[in-house]
């Protein structure tokens, strides 16, 4: 553990990194995502012991153990459900959820829909590399239709899944797109996402240099979103559906009421409950 913060000193990103060396490939985009997350934590001066990072399975999903917070590296596709349990049971904790496009949009698609709808105060970070990295290169829902691979020779022919639009349509309260190669911009967005009430969804374009080396070229094409974020979900969706996919920045800020996690102030006793059974 490297928690060396003095009582008054502002924490640094490194204070949020654990001493476990990541097993990612050299050059993987996830390294800078980790950096951005820890920077955002530092900027918000989150207490590591009051922060939980939950993930599924995939290269990207290895991130919890690389932070100095509480973490849960669950099973493939179920991180949002697990995080829902953590947050509803312990509303005072800050809960981040992180993972990949396969984990979140393929096997985890149903939880994504319902987490957006439930609007619990979670921040969901997807490192989108448009591929299943960990299982060595199969198409994910966000993969381009003509990307050739062993499992889908010649490409899937399928229209890519549009996570931002689905998030908006299902009720996410904050929607943004980032690029891992821009840690400062990403940090800024993450800082805002964590603070925004309700369900915040941040898609981070994060190249898989091993199975999608051409994604190194993303740094050439990403650009800031040309318009200001909106609070009109339909408008945001329309914009996103027609943009080039490389607009980065906050795209939508909503003001829906987050899920009620409050407990009754005056719990009754067990004897009160049992009364209903007495004859």
């Amino acid at each position, binding site marked *: 553990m490297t928690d060396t913060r003095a009582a008054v000193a502002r924490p640094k990103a490194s204070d949020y990194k654990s001493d476990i060396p990541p097993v990612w490939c050299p050059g993987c985009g996830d390294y800078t995502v980790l950096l951005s997350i820890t920077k955002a934590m530092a900027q918000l001066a989150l207490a590591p012991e009051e922060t939980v990072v939950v993930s599924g399975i995939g290269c990207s999903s290895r991130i*919890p153990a690389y932070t100095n917070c509480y973490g849960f590296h669950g099973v493939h596709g179920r991180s949002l459900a697990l995080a829902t*349990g953590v947050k509803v049971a312990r509303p005072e904790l800050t809960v981040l959820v992180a993972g990949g496009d396969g984990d979140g949009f393929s096997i985890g698609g149903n939880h994504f829909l319902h987490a957006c709808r439930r609007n619990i105060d979670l921040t969901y970070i997807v490192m989108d590399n448009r591929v299943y990295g960990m299982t060595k290169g199969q198409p994910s829902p966000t993969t381009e239709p003509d990307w050739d691979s062993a499992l889908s020779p010649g490409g899937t022919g399928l229209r890519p899944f549009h996570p931002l639009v689905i998030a908006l349509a299902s009720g996410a309260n904050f929607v943004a797109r980032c690029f891992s190669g821009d840690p400062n911009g990403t940090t800024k967005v993450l800082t805002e996402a964590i603070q925004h009430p309700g369900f915040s969804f941040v898609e981070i374009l994060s190249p898989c240099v091993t199975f999608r080396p051409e994604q190194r070229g993303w740094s050439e094409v990403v650009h800031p979103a040309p318009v200001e974020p909106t609070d009109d979900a339909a408008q945001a969706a329309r914009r996103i559906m027609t943009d080039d996919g490389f607009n980065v920045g906050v795209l939508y800020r909503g003001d829906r009421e987050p899920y009620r996690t409050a407990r009754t102030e005056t719990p009754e006793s067990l004897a009160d409950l049992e009364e209903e059974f*007495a004859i």
Partner: protein
Amino acid sequence: MTTATRKAPEPETTGVQARSKISLAISGSGGAGVITAGEMLLSAAAAAGWYGLMTRSTGPQIRGGEAAALLTLAAEPVGLHSAQFDVLIAVDWMNTDRFAAELVLTPESLVIGDSALPDDAPAFAVDSGARRADMPLKEMATEIDGGRINMVAVGCLSALLGIPDDALENAVRAKLKCKGDAAIASSLDCIRSGAEMLPSVLDDAAAAQFRLAPAGQRRDRWLISGNEAAGLGAVRGGVRFAAAYPITPATEVLEWLAPALDRVGGILVQAEDELASINMIIGASYGGVPSITATSGPGLALMIESIGLATSAEVPVVIVDVMRGGPSTGIPTKSEQSDLNIAVYGMHGDAPHIVVAPNSIGDCLFTTQWAVHLAEDMQAPAIVLSDQFLGQAKSVVDPPANVSFITRRITADAPEPGYHRYAVTDGGVSPMAVPGTKGGQYTADGLEHSPRGTPSSRVEDHVAQLAKRRRKIEEFDYGDHWATVDGDGAVAVLTWGSTAEAVRLGADMARQEGIAVKTVNLRLLLPAQPARLEAELSGVDAVVVVEQSEGAQFHHYLRAHYDLPGRVLPLNQPGPLPIQSIDVLNKIREAIQT
């Protein structure tokens, strides 16, 4: 609760000995209100001091199909209906033939139908030779403004059994409170009409056969279903979080928990599916809050992968499986004990965990509460195998004592630097840091891991972690709760779950025949307790194995984990019909013939 004073039932005057137990059925088409009628009678009888049991049987229709309320009332606690029914009252005969298999009548039985309508009594009722005491049920109801046939039936049965009027009236008022005074008044009129008509169709001597003996000293009893009891057991055990996805016949556990948790400061979340509900409770429990979900076979199947996660990441959770007929969607509304295999062996990999089973409606409370404690103590998933019969039957029981278990989740409240979440300890349990605890930060993982929690594929870590996870479960002292053992003899009957009642009764019948029988009813199914069971079975030379599963799952389970002495006589049959005490008796008789 009714507060009026009660008139004690009068002792019979005809000289016929009043009964200490009676089984009756009220049948009719869906919407005819037979379930309501049954519930009223049960409440009234309970208030008057009798014990009782009510189960319901319905067709596949949500509404409009056939339905029957099956009741047994008695001076002693009741866990099972008799194999034969003493009284059947058919509000109408619509599809009553569908109940032929569950509703066995004899020449001593009494059947009441509508005398003014064409007699459509099904073959099983006619051929039984049961005495008939038909009356113009429908006409009687029609004569009363807002009258309903089911209420006429209640009056008639109540008079037949000798249930005190005030108890019945209180039950009617309680049940119909929300329907308003007019409904109550017309119901009471119907009841009076039914009661008054009875003597004209059944002479006193005949009627006396069906009269219940006066109830004993009334104590403070509960009227509860197994599903409600499981919910209450969970709350007593400390559960404050539940995740829910509805499924028959487990939904009532969740529906009871929703407001109950809210009242005691907890919360229930409705999940999008069972994959979510199991993960939600893992998350909540990781957060330090004891958590539960309830489901049935298909839902349990969906949870299996993540129960494995709870095993590996060492997160306590409780899953109540209210079993129904299988495989697949199977028979959702009927009972069976065929989820034993999946509960015990369902996980991939070597995944030690806990499986317990209640053996009565009341025991659903104790066993669920115990499961919470076991899960919390051992930081492992515990599966509670209840079943449709226990879960959905309503029973009058003595209020279960609140057993307070002393042990609790072992947490790391002030972790030392270098804290290892999965430290390899002697007992296998490692202190668990709960988020919020400074210095306890770790990442829980379903990948095999080092003691610290870092993913590892090293043989040393795998061997050590597998061993510690097994050790904590297998070396735990489960005390006396592992089984209920009764009697002694060279024949032993082994069972688990809801078949315990048939075994108890069957063994009693055998004892009355002079056969010495021991019964062992396993509450703890996993981990197996070979030393304990083998000690109980020393001196036994024949073992009868009773279970409600076509594939003899329990028998195979016993073979796998225990050395059974002597000959083994399996008595296994699938649902939907319950195993009867007479079947058990016959097997015991078979066992004593070399």
